[in-house]
């Protein structure tokens, strides 16, 4: 089974082409191919993870690779797969969620535009993520990484006819790309340090101390840039809430299994590199700690149900990052595992609600408990799981993270970081329970306030909800503290020691979660036109405006750069380039052809485009070198020769 694990990504990838080629001619118009493919992948994933259960799981880890093409002097780049506990867990997460999402989409997407294409893209998305997961070298991983980015772009922009949606897609793509630049540089820094792309070889080089500390720190911090982008960590989180523009099943897939987990997976996969540098780890921990609280605060005031969930994802991913940052790799992956199920459930439940109520706003909902009993029940389970109420899945993983953070505070290399993560995590746990209960109350309790005639979704949609509901209950049991062949041993890190439970901490976190739930349900038991949170005054306003991050990017980065560049442009044009004549022409040209208008339109999210604007403006100036006069060109040519001559002789 392990030897043929390569089929797991290949099947969905093949499904992509098959759906495009034959999808429209099939009775269901495409989904059946993708579902069959991912089902087989799922069954194989179960077979693989079964081997890792038990004390000797580590012995089943495999790395199989074959020559891809010659590279450098004598070396070969390899294509291959790395199968270990981490891969196996990711396989399960991705294939399960993808399978259920595809089944659910048959109902959800019925009658929508580009129906067949949608399923093809889902298959490609799944296959890309699985490629990223199975990769045994960084280049292959990069290919999966980029493909995932492109797929998310395609899917978020699925309803591109509406400008806001296409903007969201572009924003997602460009924001994550911003993180990819340091990521790419990081890969090559690591390559420069280790002379290999192979992950196992990198582990080995790091373990024997072949690589300098500085190189590892630089590589880790740069690589983390990619993770920040993909996993929506502060300050590159801005794309995730906007990515709600995609169809809801896509949001479920993005938020639970693919795309955003890629960043966490990256750090987990290259954990030895990060672990070798306390500086890098602390950075991961602090960014995680900050982001989790930050996002949870924003989630409290959102009225759009999908946005609540989106910020909740940002916050929960931050939990995983923070866990990695304090060295608790198993806890992080465990949380990734449990979170996948209940977050997918929440999104699919929200999709079901939106499908029924024809609105995203919770203000148009309410009272759906009676009308949509299955959705109601499963959503409640997911709410409890996310809030961290025992015995639901989220409790076990979140508790393990908090315990590990506290332990890192006691024994870790940098005590304070561990405690910070613990305190932030505890507060966030409370807030999480609060905002989830708020969403739950506003959606399902009280009286229906909307205009539509809600009714329960069809079986093809509720079926996946029920399955995910069951998983959200039981998925956590594999990681009960003290369990001998539990989750920790699957990851097969080698010297896994069974931690004893810290009952004091458990009690504290249960109290926090319970407190949040109780408070939330008291405050929102009766629906109020004015959100009670507005009594918080200015702070509420800050939260509604998402801490003004988007505005900050606009004001602090985009406008100054843009204005200064425009002033500089003016100056250069008037003083340097061909005197006032060209200068005036240039200014007229710039303002005339509406460069600014165009830019303003394009400035969806300033900071990221800031660089683009600078470059564009520079281009707008530099292009005037190309004056059209061939004799000026000739003069530049000779000037160039002179400069080159100076350069040549300087080194002669």
């Amino acid at each position, binding site marked *: 089974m392990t030897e043929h694990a390569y089929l797991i990504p290949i099947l969905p990838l093949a499904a992509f082409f098959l759906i495009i080629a034959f999808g429209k001619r099939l009775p269901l118009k495409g989904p059946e191919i993708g579902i069959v493919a991912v089902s087989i992948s799922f069954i194989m994933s179960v077979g693989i993870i079964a081997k890792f259960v038990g004390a000797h799981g580590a012995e089943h880890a495999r790395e199989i690779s074959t020559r891809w093409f010659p590279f450098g002097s004598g070396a070969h780049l390899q294509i291959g797969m790395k199968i270990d506990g981490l891969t196996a867990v990711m396989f399960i997460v991705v294939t399960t969620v993808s399978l259920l999402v595809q089944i659910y989409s048959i109902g959800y997407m019925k009658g929508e535009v580009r129906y067949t294409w949608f399923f093809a893209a889902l298959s490609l998305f799944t296959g890309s993520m699985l490629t990223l997961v199975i990769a045994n070298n960084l280049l292959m991983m990069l290919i999966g990484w980029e493909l995932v980015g492109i797929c998310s772009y395609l899917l978020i922009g699925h309803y591109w006819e509406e400008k806001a949606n296409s903007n969201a897609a572009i924003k997602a793509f460009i924001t994550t790309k911003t993180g990819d630049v340091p990521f790419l540089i990081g890969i090559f820094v690591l390559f420069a340090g280790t002379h290999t792309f192979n992950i196992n070889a990198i582990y080995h080089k790091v373990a024997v101390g072949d690589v300098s500390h500085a190189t590892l720190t630089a590589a880790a911090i740069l690589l983390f840039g990619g993770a920040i982008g993909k996993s929506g960590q502060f300050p590159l989180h801005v794309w995730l809430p906007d990515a709600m523009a995609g169809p809801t099943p896509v949001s479920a897939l993005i938020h639970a299994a693919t795309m955003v987990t890629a960043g966490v997976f990256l750090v987990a996969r290259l954990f030895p590199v990060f672990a070798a540098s306390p500086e890098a780890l602390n950075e991961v921990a602090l960014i995680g700690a900050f982001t989790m609280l930050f996002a949870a605060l924003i989630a409290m005031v959102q009225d759009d149900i999908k946005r609540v969930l989106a910020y909740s994802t940002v916050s929960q991913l931050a939990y995983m990052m923070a866990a990695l940052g304090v060295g608790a790799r198993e806890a992080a992956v465990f949380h990734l595992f449990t979170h996948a199920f209940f977050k997918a459930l929440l999104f699919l439940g929200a999709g079901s609600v939106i499908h029924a109520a024809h609105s995203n706003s919770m203000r148009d909902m309410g009272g759906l408990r009676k009308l949509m009993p299955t959705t109601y029940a499963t959503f409640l389970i997911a709410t409890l799981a996310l809030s961290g109420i025992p015995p639901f899945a989220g409790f076990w993983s979140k508790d393990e993270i908090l315990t590990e953070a506290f332990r890192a505070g006691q024994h870790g290399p940098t005590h304070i970081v561990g405690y910070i993560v613990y305190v932030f995590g505890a507060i966030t746990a409370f807030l999480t329970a609060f905002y989830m209960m708020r969403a739950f109350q506003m959606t399902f309790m009280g009286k229906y306030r909307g205009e539509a005639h809600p009714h329960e979704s069809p079986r093809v949609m509720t079926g996946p909800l029920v399955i995910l509901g069951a998983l959200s209950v039981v998925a956590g049991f594999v990681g009960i503290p003290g369990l001998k062949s539990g989750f920790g041993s699957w990851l097969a890190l080698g010297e896994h020691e069974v931690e004893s439970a810290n009952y004091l901490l458990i009690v504290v976190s249960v109290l926090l979660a319970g407190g949040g739930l109780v408070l939330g349900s008291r405050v929102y038991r009766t629906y109020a036109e004015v959100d009670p949170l507005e009594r918080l005054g200015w702070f509420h306003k800050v939260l509604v405006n998402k801490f003004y991050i988007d505005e900050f990017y606009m004001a602090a980065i985009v406008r100054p750069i843009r204005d200064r560049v425009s002033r500089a442009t003016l100056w250069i044009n008037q003083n340097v380039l061909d005197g006032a004549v060209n200068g005036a022409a240039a200014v007229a040209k710039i303002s005339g052809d509406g460069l600014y208008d165009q830019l303003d339109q394009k400035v969806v999210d300033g900071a990221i485009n800031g660089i683009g604007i600078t470059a564009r403006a520079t281009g707008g100036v530099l292009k005037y070198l190309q004056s059209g006069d061939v*004799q*000026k060109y000739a*003069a530049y040519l*000779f*000037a160039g020769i*002179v400069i080159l*001559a100076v350069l040549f002789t300087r080194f002669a």
Partner: protein
Amino acid sequence: MILAATGPEIAFWGFAVVAGIAGFFVVGSRNVVHAALYLVGVLGSVGAIYIVLGAEFVGWVQILIYVGAIVVLLLFGIMLTKAPIGGVALDNNQRPVAFIVAATTFGGLTWIIWRTFGGTRIRLSPTRTAQIGNSLFTHFVLPFEAVSVLLLAALVGAIVLARRD
């Protein structure tokens, strides 16, 4: 030094001075036709210098092709484009730049040439035309064929472009 000069050296000097001065007038003249005539002066003197240096065949080819064909072609060009004979400015506004570039080029080149070849003497002896012909059609037959294609292409292309249709 002048006193010790041999006949060919004196001849070289004479033609070189003519070529240089005529060259200045080619780029300085305010009349297009005059410029073309000065160009004849440069090309002729350079041809004569080839003969002095012993490259008789190249020298005659220079005079025949350049003076006989290229300059005539250029004069045709001048007439067909009804270029104003005198009166209108023939220079653009970057003369100072051009002068600096040219002076720098000349200074730099002269410096590196004298640095490397300052003490090298040539013994003059004529190259027979037969030698050139032999070499051209054995050793250099491939570029010769390639150039014939080039000439054909230039001919056909020039006709297509210049023809009125």
